[in-house]
């Protein structure tokens, strides 16, 4: 094993309960073309696709592990690293950009100490700039999980962060 591989192995998450994945796999096991729904279902359960789970899916579905990785890296909606409990998305599409989205993004960077597509070490936040959230009338727009925050200002960013900092992680 090379150093790179060994290091990757060390980075592995300590304990993953595969029985959760098994429940999802069992649901789709006999359906042709089951890889996508299994991967989506598993991601819903774990929040991302841990490597051991990907390998487990490969074994159970009799699909090459490489093929699974190919699918996982093709679609940007699959995540290979743990994600924050609160996913903050800030729109930087044309309308939001004109309304000063850049400043909203920068303020989030300052407050959260994480950049685009990064997750805070305590797994509280993941931050993403997105192209358009489809609600240009509310520009500049931000979302935290499924909650929408329109007409964003720097002041509101501070309020949102303060609010979500208070919420329990578990």
């Amino acid at each position, binding site marked *: 094993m*090379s150093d790179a591989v060994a290091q990757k192995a060390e980075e592995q998450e300590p304990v993953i309960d595969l029985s959760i994945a098994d429940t999802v796999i069992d649901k789709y096991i006999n359906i042709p073309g089951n890889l996508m729904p299994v991967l989506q279902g598993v991601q819903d359960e774990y929040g991302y696709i841990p490597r051991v789970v*990907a390998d487990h899916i*490969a074994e159970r579905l009799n699909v*090459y*592990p*490489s093929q699974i*990785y190919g699918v996982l*890296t*093709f679609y940007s909606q699959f995540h290979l690293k743990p994600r924050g409990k609160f996913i903050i998305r800030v729109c930087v599409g044309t309308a939001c950009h004109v309304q000063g989205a850049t400043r909203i993004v920068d303020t989030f960077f300052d407050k959260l100490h994480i950049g685009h597509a990064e997750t805070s070490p305590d797994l509280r936040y993941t931050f993403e700039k997105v192209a358009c959230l489809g609600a240009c009338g509310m520009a500049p727009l931000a979302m935290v999980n499924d909650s929408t925050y329109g007409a964003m200002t720097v002041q509101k960013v501070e309020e949102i962060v303060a609010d979500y900092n208070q919420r329990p992680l578990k």
Partner: protein
Amino acid sequence: MVNLTIDDKQVTAPRTATIYEAAKQNGIKIPILCHDKKLKPFGACRMCLVEVEQMKGRQIPACTTPVTEGMIIRTSTPDIVKARKMVLELLLLNHPLDCPVCDKSGDCDLQNLTYEYKVNSNRFKDEKFNHSIDYNNPLIERDMNRCVLCGKCARICDEIVSYGALTFIDRGIETKIGCEFDDGLNCEFCGSCISVCPVGSLLARPFKHKARFWAMTKHTSVCGYCGTGCNLTLGVKDNKVLTTIYDEDQGFHKGQLCVRGRFGYQFINSAQRLTKPLVRKNGRLTESTWEEAFEVVVGRLKGGSAVAALATARLTNEELSLFKKLLVENVGTKNFDHAGGYAHTALTEGFARSFGASASPANILDIQKSDLLLVIKTDSYETHPVVGFEINMAVKNKGVKLAIVSDKRGKLSKLPDATTLVHLPGTEIAVLNAIAKILLDEKLVDASAVAGFAELEKALAGFDVESVAALTGLRAADIKQLATDYAAAEKALIIFPIGQAYPGHNADLASATANLAILTGKYGKEGCGVLCLSEKNNSQGAVDMGFYAQDGGLNGLAILDACADGSVKTLFVAGENPLTSYPDRSKVKAALEAVEFLIVSELFLTETAAMADVVLPVCSFAEKDGTFTSTDRRVQYFKAAIRKNVQIKSDFEIFSELIKRLGGQAPSSPSLQFSDIAAKTSGYAGLSHVSLRKDGAFASVEISPALVVPQAVTAVCAEQGKLALVTGSTLYHNGTLSQYGEGPMHVCPEGYIEVSRTDAAAYKIAENDLVTVSSTTGTIQLKAKVTPRMPAGVVFSPYHFSETPINTIWSGAPVTLVTLAK
């Protein structure tokens, strides 16, 4: 056939052909990068663009477009040339252009096309790729900076090898070929990806910076490992074999090779090769002259039946027949054998009784023509990987059904819709008998006219499916289903491996398989029969030459017993290494110590050779001429690829010289000896070295079927606190020779014991833990491999290794009870 016009030439092509194939068949060259005739059309590179008049002159890819009646195609208009040039400019945009240090240079499709299309400048500008190079394994280097994303490596790994190590990862401009989680490559290292790579992205590391492609001479040869009979092209420079070169038109396997064939050649030019005869003086082997060695040997060979011989089935047909002549006519002994005297009994006794011929009544080409393959033991993939590729292609491309009866799962079990019946070890004959009984009971067949029917029907009485199910640990319904499927298939082929590590694959197993084929009439026609996969490159030849115990001669194991009790005084071992490969190491050692005089002819100072009184250094297959007969009885001629060291002799020269010194007449060349073989050997009539020069020829097999009652001895495979050890071959090795090939030793350097997850948990064994394995005959320490393929209670270990010889705990039983301790 359809008629079409390509470049103003009226041509015809099969209805199923693509434009590219039609052009190629008619001598018109269309450039390709991503297309390979063995793979499904892909259409990624756009080098093969052509214009079709009916499509309003649109440029379409020739490799994916089927021909239609009346098509008018132009393959090289100025517009097409312009388009291809641009394709090349775009491919070269991110390519490092490091041809001066690239081993592919001279054999590189991208380089050749760039030259052909005179792409001497690039209108585009972009950064070069900056992927890290994968040096993770010792055999295959992956430099994705040179990649043109043709996908051939990923496709061959899926479509033919069925391993799926490589795939496209990421998306858009970021796309590259990679492994799971972008790790380094860690696969079965057959190197098929290297063979099809059109650029220098995948290269053989053992060949790195060894020679420029054009500086090597290319010599065709036949692989010297297993019995598949794959053809090789050896790249030779300065009288050294430096690499194997891919030739997509070579052999039935179209140039496909396994890890042994592709990377196992280093033994030919190994520094460990013996170069001088050794004679034991004052207890030590000392370098000597051929004259002295011959004198000593000739003196010892005048012993009549107190002389015995063991020869490896790696020798050529000419050598084996000449050795037999020496032993029978000049020495006067019948005591000679190969492969332990038991590994060939499936052919020499089983098929001989059941089919009236000591050869398989089927060949490898039948695999893809069959409707159902019944494989006994998944090891068929590991013992004969290229046959495994044929099975993969049959199942994946031709929709052939695959049923496996095995004591463990394996790679074949993963093929689409493959059914695997995992039985308790050592009970395969009972399963086959139960199938035969179902065929009779359910009136699925009528074979009452065949010789031996009544006896068989009577003998099968005890094999009702319920009791066999209980005995073997299978479900009765599964056995019934298999029997029905086998009977219903229009064409069905049974495949099983034999070899020194498969003592259970004996005459009885051969008869049990033959019975199924004979009962259902599935033999002697295309896609039907039984294919026995023999272990060594010339195992079938050794049988055809009659180099085994007959007419009261002692067989391999009996010869060793006779050495121990003193009745055999001189033992001539030509190329075998019984100390590692024969069962019960302590017994073999005692026999070799006891025998008065031991002569060994060898490439290397093996541990057996180290015990000898005289060691004669001999040629490898690359240094001599001769013929090998593959497992499906394809006789193939090969010429020396390199000149031999002047100090060594071929076995042929040694046997000739000994015959002369014993007062006999020996033929002066292998080709003369072959004329003698052709005259005397059934099925070889009319063959000669000249007629075999291209492609070889199948020696015919005359079948006269008879039903034979197989003895189903069921091994005890369960005892409190013990596990059932089954022996076998590992994918990377063949016999004991591959220990001298650097490639196989890089990826599989030592013996191991494969343990199921259940047992690993019970014994608290983790991967690579050193485990002490004990049986009644001995104890050995082996590294553990924890795999999902082993059933609980069964462990597997390969037999090839002198450092970790499995025969210390294995005394030749199909199943050995062992205990494990950490």
